Structures are given as C-alpha cells and as structure tokens.
C-alpha cells in the first residue's frame, strides 16, 4: 500500500508524516508550522534505489511518551475508521507502514522527538515495528532539551526514488498541500536546493466538524454486521439509534413495516443472529430515511482558495468555486474547484491542463484516469468556456484545475486511496462545480478575446487598408488626390468598426472588474 515503487515510497512516507502533523494540529486547535527536509543520501540497498531521508518537524501538541510507540510502531493503533470525521488519516496504518518500510530497506526505524506542553524535556529515540506481535520497540530512548514548547519531529531513512515534478512528484504534493491548507506555514528543503518558505495566508483555525455516526444507507451488509459485532452490549434498537445517524424511534416503527421482524428491536444485540441482522439491514434499505446531516463536512472556502492559489506560481487569473454541502450516494460531500492560468507557461497551449486532486485535503497523485474527478473534468464541455479540448479528454492549455472533495465517508477505489470511486451522483456534483468555475473563467477569457479582437482589427486596418487603396488606384489609374480621399474614407469606415470593438472590450473589462471586486470583498470579509 503506497510502497510499490521507489517514487511512491517517498511520497507515501512524506504524506503520512505531514497528514499526521496537520491532523494533530487541527485537533489541538493549533495553526500548523511544518518544516520538511528531504535528502538523497546515497545508494539504496535495493537495485535502482537510493537511500532517502525524510524529516518532518511540526509545532503540534506532541505525543505523550506512552503513546509514541503505539503511533509509530503498531498498526491500527489510532484507527479513526468509520468515525465520520473529515480527517486526513482514517485507518492508523500509514505511518506504521512507513516505519516498517524503513526497517525493511535500510534496517532503521523512525527517529522521533516529541514534546507536549506538560513535559519539561522532550523525549527522543528510535521506534521499530515488531510485525509478528504488532508492537513497537523504543530504542535509544532519552530525554533531551528541545527548542520548542511542543511538537513532534520524525525522521525516516529508506529505499526510494526522489521524483520532484509531475503527477507523482514531491513538489507537486507540497504545492497541492499548500493550496488546500492556507492556514499552514510550510518550509521545505530538498537536497542542496534553497529552502522554500510558504507564509501562512489565513490565521483562521480550522474547525473540524464533530463526528457523526454513519448513515445506514452508506454501509454494505458486511460492514453493517461488523459494526453490530463491535458495538458491544445493547439492544438492537439502541444499536440502530446510537450507531447510525437518522434513525429514531419513529424510524424503527417504519422499519417494522418494511419487514424487520417484530420484537427484534428490544432483543439483545450480541444474542441476535446474523440472519436476523440481515433482515434488519434489508428493512433499512427498503425504508426511506432522512438524508445525512451536512454539518459534518468541512470546506476550504472560496476566499481561502483564492489566497492560496497564488502559492502555485505566478498566475494571471483564476476562478474558485466552493459549493454548499450536498448529499451524494447518501453521504455529505463538499466539492471545491480552483482554476488558474500560469503566466510562465502561457504559450503551452497543446499540453493538457494540470489536474490537482484532493480527498479530505490530501493530494491524490496516482491512478488519475479512473478517478471520479478526472472523469468529471473530461465530461465538461470546456470549449464553451474558451478552452481547447479534444473529444472526451482533459482540456488543453497552461491551466491548473484543482478539485477538492471533502466528506467524512469518501469511497476510494483501492486501498492506496489514490482514486475516488466515480458514482454518477458524485460525478454530477463535480461537473456542476467545474461548470460553475468554467463560467467564471470564461469571463476572463472573453475579456482577453475582446482585447485580441480589437488588436487584430487595428492591425488589419493598418496593414491592409493602404494595400487595397493602392491596388484599386493602379487598376483604375486614379490620381493621387483620389487615393488620399479614399484612404480617409476607409479609415472613417473601419474606425466605426473598431469603435464597436472597443465598446465590446470595455463591456468585458467592466464585467471582469466587477467579478474581481466581488472576490476582493469576500477576501476582505474573511480577513
């Protein structure tokens, strides 16, 4: 999972460490400062691999000494699965897997330094995973003085390949992360390159909405049974009411009408057979329930996106759309889209646009083709918004299209969580958001087209007017005075056309300015 190639190994290790830092900061209400160092330090132990060092330091709440072993040395230690929160990590597997990969390829565990506010000194050491027992070993444990009140530092050494640019590139990941986390202050240094610093753009702390129990229509039968077995001592009715959202006493009466055996509601859950639970599940599927609450979904917001999009490079215009939470496949979802055009590669009109995909604010960098986001982008008619687009493909040009999907229950196609499952409802919601962003984008493009049109018309008059008059003069043998008069007449005539073009351009400029002002007002309100 995430370590099937050298490139993926680097990216997965980095992602897991950064995700943990961001989740920890947000849980503790801290504005995150993260510092990253990545170095290629020599040949790896495996063929065609290098030894890579990845170090991530944060200002998070720190980890209590007793928890450090569990976080980095045990699988599923901090599982948040099914919690119904929009957190980045879900299963508590990733960072332990990174430790394991380091151990397997370079025989080194993860070096950890951590300090909570309550601790006088920081704790330092190396964690290794004992895979057979699923438990960690803390080696070289010692207390040290550290220059910060709280935080965590992790350092991995492992076999990998360092790719910077492109879809699986480290820089693409860092830029993507900085885009969807405007509250993040990020420093990174890669090999001998100069350190890069992204200033914090928003001092607003991220409020993670409270967790909600899953909506019963979102679970498959197996998941429903597993949920029941793990729920503990209670009645079936209590399990349904507390273990799920949108189930009340009235709903249970409706379930009985839909085929749930009478009396089963008051039975003890552990004593209820799987066949009876299947009947309950089947009744739930037949019963119409209220849609899930959308308050559990987090959004980045148009104002924040408008600020952070400038972190991606020098852009000459952009459009951002943040839709209200919607229900797709019985799950609350927020879709947000940012489109921008880079100044530096404005001439690159033949290459497909750069697509940045995010799920719960984590960049997705592999297996783009079958992802719901890519499918939705390809299904939009971008020509209508002034972009070139081959049939059923990504549009072309020096644009970046960043699409973020946030939901407490994102359904991925595979275990490596790189591809969002493309259900019809989700693709349609993505399409609508993309189209809205496309409409805003087209205003910018129209302004440009009008300006180019005026320029072309002025050039035409300058270039072709004199030729036309001269040719007419030679054919008719007209005297110079007639040609001069005709020239004045032609200028007057074509001047009327350019006046009309100028007026259209002014109209487009006015509309564009109004849009800019609206964005400024929104930004100001957030600041």
């Amino acid at each position, binding site marked *: 999972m995430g370590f099937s190639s050298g490139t993926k190994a680097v990216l997965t290790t980095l992602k897991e460490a950064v995700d943990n830092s961001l989740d920890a900061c947000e849980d503790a209400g801290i504005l995150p400062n993260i510092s990253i160092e990545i170095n290629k330090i020599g040949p790896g132990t495996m063929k065609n691999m290098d030894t890579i060092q990845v170090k991530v330091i944060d200002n998070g709440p720190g980890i209590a000494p007793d928890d450090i072993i569990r976080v980095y040395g045990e699988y599923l230690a901090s599982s948040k699965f099914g919690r119904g929160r929009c957190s980045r990590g879900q299963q508590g597997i990733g960072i332990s897997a990174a430790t394991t990969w380091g151990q397997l390829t370079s025989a080194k565990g993860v070096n950890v330094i951590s300090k909570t506010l309550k601790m006088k000194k920081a704790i330092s050491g190396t964690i290794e995973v004992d895979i057979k027992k699923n438990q960690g070993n803390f080696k070289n444990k010692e207390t040290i003085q550290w220059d910060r009140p709280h935080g965590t530092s992790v350092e991995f050494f492992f076999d990998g390949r360092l790719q910077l640019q492109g879809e699986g590139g480290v820089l693409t990941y860092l830029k993507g992360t900085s885009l969807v986390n405007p509250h993040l202050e990020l420093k990174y240094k890669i090999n001998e390159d100069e350190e890069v610093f992204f200033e914090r753009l928003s001092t607003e702390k991220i409020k993670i909405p409270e967790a909600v129990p899953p909506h019963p229509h979102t679970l498959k039968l197996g998941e429903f049974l597993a949920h029941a077995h793990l729920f503990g001592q209670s009645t079936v009715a209590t399990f349904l009411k507390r273990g799920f959202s949108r189930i009340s006493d009235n709903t249970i009466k409706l379930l009985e009408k839909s085929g749930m055996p009478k009396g089963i509601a008051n039975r003890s859950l552990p004593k209820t057979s799987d066949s009876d639970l299947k009947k309950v599940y089947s009744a739930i599927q037949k019963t119409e329930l209220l849609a899930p609450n959308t308050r559990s979904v987090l959004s980045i917001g148009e104002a924040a996106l408008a600020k952070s999009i400038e972190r991606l490079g020098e852009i000459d215009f952009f459009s951002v759309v943040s839709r209200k939470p919607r229900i797709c496949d019985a799950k609350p979802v927020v879709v947000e889209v940012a489109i921008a055009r880079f100044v530096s590669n404005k001439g690159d009109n033949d290459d497909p646009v750069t697509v940045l995909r995010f799920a719960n604010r984590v960049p997705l960098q592999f297996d783009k083709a079958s992802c719901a986001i890519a499918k939705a982008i390809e299904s939009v008619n971008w020509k209508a918004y002034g972009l070139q687009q081959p049939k059923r493909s990504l549009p072309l040009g020096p644009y970046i299209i960043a699409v973020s999907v946030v939901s407490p229950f994102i359904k991925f196609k595979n275990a490596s969580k790189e591809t969002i499952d493309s259900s019809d409802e989700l693709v349609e919601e993505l399409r609508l958001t993309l189209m809205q962003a496309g409409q805003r984008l087209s205003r910018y493009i129209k302004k440009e087209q009008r300006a180019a049109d005026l320029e072309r*018309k002025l050039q*035409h*008059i300058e*270039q*072709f*007017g*004199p*030729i*036309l*008059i*001269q*040719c*007419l*003069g*030679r*054919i*008719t043998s*007209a005297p110079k005075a*007639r*040609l001069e*008069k*005709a*020239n*004045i*007449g*032609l200028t*007057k*005539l*074509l001047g009327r*056309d*350019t006046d009309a*073009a100028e007026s259209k351009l002014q109209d487009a400029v006015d509309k564009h300015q109004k849009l800019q002002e609206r964005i400024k007002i929104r930004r100001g309100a957030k600041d």
Partner: protein
Amino acid sequence: MATSRKSTSIKIGNNRDIPKLSKALCERMLADLEKARRPMLEATKCSLDNAVYNPKVGFLTPGDKKVRSELNVSSVQKLSRAIFFLEILLRNLETGAVNNKRELYYIAKGECKHNKDLKPLDFADQSESDSVVDFITEMLECYREELNVFANDRGGQTYSKNLIVTEHMADNEKAVVDLGSLGTSPFQPKNKPQSFTLKAKKGKLDFCLVVESEGTANTLVSNGFTKRNNCILMGAQGVPSNAVRSWAKTIQDQLKIPIYFFGDLDAYTIQNIYRTLKAGSAASLIRNADFSAPEVRFLGVLPEDIKKYDLADYVVNPKDAAEFRSLKKAQDALKNDPFFKDKKNKGVTHVLNWLIKNKRRCEQQAFFMVDPKDPLMPEKIIIDKIKRGEFL
C-alpha cells in the same frame, strides 16, 4: 449587411470585356470609399439551395439568391487580397500569359516577397490563393478560363473512325483532325475554351458512348468497338471535368446524335457523375449552360441488368465511411436536388431510391463476367441495350 443601395454586380453576357468590367468594379469601389461608404460586392449564390431545374431547359440554373460581401474590418484582408490578385490576372490578360492555380499561388508569393508593402498579404498555402481566385470569378461572374486561369486536362479522350474535328484558333487558323487517322491515340479536348466544328466523315454518326471508366473505354476501343460501330466513344475519367462537359455538349448540339452514359450502378455515379454531365452542378450554376448535355441518357448498369445478366453485385457497407456518406448524400439529393425531384428524371430517381433501399452496388466491368471467354460480350450487351431501348 445588405442595403437598398445599388450593388457592384456584373451580369454574364456574350463578348464580355473582363478588363473593362474589372476596372468598372474597382472604380465603383474607389468612389464608394471616397464617400466613406462601404463598397458592397454581390455574386450569384452557387449552391443547391439556389439551384432551379426546368425540364425544358434541361440543366440547373441559378435562382434569385445572392451572396453579398461588404467591406468592413473583418473583410478588409479578403478584399485587399482579391484586388491584389485581380491586378495580376489583368496583367496576364493584357500580355496573354496563362497560368494554373498552383502557378498563380507562387506568382502571388513572389510579388509579396519582392515588395515589402505587400508582405501582409502573403499566402500560407495554395488553398488561400485558390479561394481568392474563386471569389474573383464569383464577383465578376465569369469563368476562370476567361481570366486565363486553366486547370489541368483530365478525361474526354475520344475515339471514332468517322469523326472530323475542325478547331478554329484565335489567330483565325484552322486545325482539322480526322479521328480515324489517329491510330491508337485519342483526341482530347483541352480544359479551356476551344472553338470546334464537328462533322461525320461519311453519312451520319449513329451514337456517342461516354464511359465512366477511362480504362474500360480503352479496352472497348482496343477490342474494336469503334471499328464495328459508327460511333464516338469517350472516356469520362470519373467526375467529368469542364472539358468533358463542354465537349459532350458540343457533340450533342452539332451532331444531334443520341449520347449514352455507361457507368457503375451506385449512388455516387448517378448523383455526381451522370447528373453533372447531363444537367451541370450546383457549384457551377452560372456555367451550366455551356457545361451540360441534357440529352445524355443513362444506359447502365441498371438494376434490372443485374438479374438479366446475372451480374455480381456487392452490399454497400454502412461501416465504410465513403460508402455511407455516398448513401447519405443520395438521400439528401432525393429531398433537395431539383434535378431528382423533377418527374422528367423519375427513371434515375427510381434507381437512386432502389440503391438506397437495397444498399447494393454493381460495377460497369461486371459485364465482362457474362461470358468470360468472349472479350466482345460487354460490347454486344451495350449495343443490344441501345437497340432494345434499355436506358433511362
């Protein structure tokens, strides 16, 4: 675009003086510009939606629709190029020089190269300069040949043992060609205006046969078709060029003999080749009077020939883009082409309907399978069909 103001339009008439008409057109444009008025050019719309078919006339003629081009900031480039090109063509007319479109493209490029003021006019490829030449012919409503622009010669190779062609040259010289004395060589009309007088060497010719395939025409002649039959045999070489169309009309008008067309049984042949030869085309509405032979009859292959002679035919493959397009065009023709809508041509319309319904096609060479050992069998069938009146 269109106003009530009088437009600059020149009607086709006999003995037109193209330089004079061109100068008048330019004079009018210049006068409009002096008054800061937009010059407007008008031409007959040459497309099917402006085609009229009168069975008494026999060919497609233009309706009332006009195409108008007004000078504005968007059309100033097109008009500058047109007047620039007109100047080159007038120079050719004055000196008697002739060119084809490819040569004109390079002449125009050369002018732009050697005169920096003309650089903005430069042509990126030949299609750009070709469209300017076409625009000028539409504007002046003349043939491109009248501007000394000639296409390559194609089709019209003619064989006969009893035909004498007298060509009247521009310098009043006469060239007399006895087709019977040319041996295996054909006589071929040029793709430019020629003045001919035709007569039979002895008595009166019986008929003229126009064969779609140049190769099949050659085979028939090699096997002695013109020795045994008192006729003219001409190869069309696909869609008839202006030379073939005008030559067929000359044979029709001067010799007053029946003309039969022998080609494939498919929608493309009937719609694009036979209809063009008989009634002209929509693109050349203003020229069809000189470039069509309304008396031409369709000899075959006819649908009934397939059964009668047990000919091999083929299913039209709807997945083949060209064949599918051809059928689609045939359906459109039945709906929109006045030639096929007129009851005078109900025979070919019936065949077109048969082709669309049955989606089959049969090639002219299929007559060679009737008796594979007899090379003269196709000739025998053709003569038999003429004698029995089995044509449309």
